[in-house]
């Protein structure tokens, strides 16, 4: 198992306090993950900046190869 889904969730939650985070394993191999993140911090940011924040939170796990692909979906709490 490449990485615990829970660990990715915690990394994102630590970077974005108060965010609602869901991480699922898209392939059953634990290295192609999908994160759905709802955070007030995204307010007013472009999508790419929202994604940058999520990616940055998990960067170390990309760098060490634990995560091969992370698909990201971002939202603000008020839609």
């Amino acid at each position, binding site marked *: 198992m490449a990485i615990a889904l829970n660990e990715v969730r915690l990394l994102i939650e630590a970077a974005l306090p108060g965010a609602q985070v869901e991480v699922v394993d898209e392939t059953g191999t634990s290295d192609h993950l999908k994160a759905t993140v709802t955070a007030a911090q995204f307010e007013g940011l472009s*999508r*790419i900046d929202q*994604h*940058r924040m999520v*990616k940055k939170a998990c960067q170390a796990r*990309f760098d060490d190869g634990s995560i091969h*692909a992370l*698909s*990201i*979906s971002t939202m603000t709490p008020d839609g």
Partner: protein
Amino acid sequence: MAEPELKDKVEELIKDNEVLLFMKGTPEQPRCGFSMRVVGVLDSMGVEYAALDVLPALEPLREATGEIADWRTFPQLYVKGNLLGGCDIVEEMADSGELAEMLGGEAPSDTPAPNGAPQSAKQELQQDGPHQSPPMQIENS
């Protein structure tokens, strides 16, 4: 650190091509599912775009785009000099209609781009067919 020459070249490409896709493989022969999906979106919209195959120089290009746009995974779609996003963002914006507005509702260059650009403009683009610009190559020196 990215090689300065390659970084300059990449910045030049981003500046010179209004719609530029960094992808794995070519539009005709994508070598990655995510790249293929972005090509599918652009082709289905009839958007004219330039495509660069990153595979011949994958790691140097990761470094270069990391420094230029703080983004190291491919595909990457640049529109008017700015990174729009990868597969997720492109598909999301295609579904919501934002991408058609951005790519299809071109304003003349001497006026500011309208926020609610008409979607009908994309039909004009479709006459010419997709991705006319030939795929480009960067030599991995």
